């Protein structure tokens, strides 16, 4: 028998525990490493403070450390709440959750103040959204018991078996298509892109979504090998406005001209 309200509590707690755990790891690992990219908060804080004419890095560093400390405390609260729920100590779990959520709401309120000071309206929206999600999580965590002690039991009835068979069939079909798609398209990651001459001396390259800097380098080198008579004198990246909405990854125009013939 699984109680709905307990399951929802678990899902809310797991979400916020991992949210703050990964947030804390992101502060511990400040740069790009194998298995972790994260966001560079140090650079962000330095730039934000520089925009206020506070160029001494100590202020940004102290602020970042302060924010990280609150995040660590919040994470510990959620972790204790999760452990309390797991060990069936519901009142302790509720208390720790309330502490965690209060700290989180306080933290996001603090962030929104900062966003206003630094004039970053998009981040203000982002932090306000997280703030309201926290408030609603709090209400649902504490008051979902008003729904009553609804619970459900998983039994292998006929319809459950049909559901599982349908699910397995969908997963098998998707896997087949996924693996096939990967096999057919992965080569695009490194393969040079074919250029099309759209105007005399101007070639257009429509890069696939998998393409990155290596594809660009291979494309240019392959183009130079194919057209030894041409000299690339300019590269122009097609801005987003020229793209067909979500269909185009990157457009590149290569402007060329005939190499001057050498006179012996």
């Amino acid at each position, binding site marked *: 028998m699984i109680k709905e309200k307990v399951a929802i509590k678990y899902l809310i707690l797991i*979400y916020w525990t991992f*949210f703050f755990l990964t947030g804390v790891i992101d502060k511990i690992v400040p740069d790009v490493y194998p298995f972790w990219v994260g966001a560079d908060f140090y650079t962000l804080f330095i730039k934000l403070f520089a925009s206020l004419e506070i160029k001494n890095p100590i202020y940004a560093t102290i602020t970042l450390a302060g924010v990280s400390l609150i995040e660590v405390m919040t994470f510990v609260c959620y972790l204790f709440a999760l452990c309390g729920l797991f060990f069936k100590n519901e009142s302790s779990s509720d208390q720790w959750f309330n502490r965690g959520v209060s700290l989180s709401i306080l933290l996001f309120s603090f962030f929104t103040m900062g966003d206003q000071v630094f004039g970053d309206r998009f981040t203000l929206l982002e932090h306000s959204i997280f703030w309201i999600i926290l408030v609603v999580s709090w209400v649902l965590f504490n008051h979902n018991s008003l729904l009553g002690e609804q619970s459900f039991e998983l039994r292998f009835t006929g319809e459950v078996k049909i559901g599982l068979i349908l699910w397995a069939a969908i997963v098998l079909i998707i896997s087949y298509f996924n693996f096939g798609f990967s096999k057919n398209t992965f080569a695009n990651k490194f393969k040079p892109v074919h250029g099309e001459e759209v105007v005399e001396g101007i070639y257009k390259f429509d890069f696939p*979504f998998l393409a990155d800097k290596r594809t660009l380098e291979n494309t240019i080198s392959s183009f130079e090998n194919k057209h030894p008579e041409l000299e690339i004198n300019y590269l122009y990246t097609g801005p987003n406005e020229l793209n067909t909405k979500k269909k185009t990854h990157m457009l590149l125009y290569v402007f060329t001209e005939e190499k001057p013939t050498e006179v012996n």
Partner: protein
Amino acid sequence: MLGSLCSCFCRLFNRMINLDVEKTTKIKANGNLIRYLILIFWALFWLFNVLDKFVGGAHYLFVGKDRFAQIQRYFDSIGLGNPMVTNFTLTFTAALEAFALVCFLGALYHLIRKNLESNRVWFFLGISTTLTVYIFFSIGDQIFGDHSELLEHALFWFIALLSWIIFNRNNQFHIFDNFSISKKPILLFTLFAIIIGSVTCFSIFRHNQIAFKERTQAVHAKRISANKYKIEFPFLAGSSAFESTIAKFKEQHTDLRINFIYTAPKPMRLGQSDGLIIYLQTEEK
């Protein structure tokens, strides 16, 4: 005739959402309408996500999102460039999404059969799977450092949580309970809808006739100094318009060579009223 059409529409609507329609077209809704709407949303949401995984890449009538490319790039950024890692992650994600789809379809089936207890259980399983999917995605977003995706996934997690509470407590909201539609407001509504709709459609079709050619048409380059030209593209312009503009420019100025193109950045444009603006720098051949 209009009245009978309206009452026909009401009866059809009633069949779909289990409403009691009286002869005077008075409608009394029960609380299931919001449940149907929530279930249809989530079933279609996951159906299209699953379809997107089948299709892979942009095709005729379906562009979707190239998830393989997106996830492969993410894993490549953390040093796991092997496509098998991407394939297994994508398959695992698709399995969770397909499970949520099956649960919501099961919930919809039980709601149609008016088996509310089973409907609740299937819906709860669907919502739990949806919440789990978004927990999993949010962890990934933090690892890969994509905070706009983190916000998007947090919002979906939140929407799923709210859907669950509204689905279970919809009887206390009184949103669609007991509203009535008599013939006079329906006639007025139809009249207004037809008049305003006709004006809107006329304007849209007229604009289509005038403006569609801008998608590919060459744009005039305005000389702003001795060797610099400004080109202001309309909003509809795509890559073909850019190419024909450059071709026309080269044709008109055979003595000039383009040696630099500068794209005016967004802060240099007038609010939302300017489209793409480029500056060509040229030199004598």
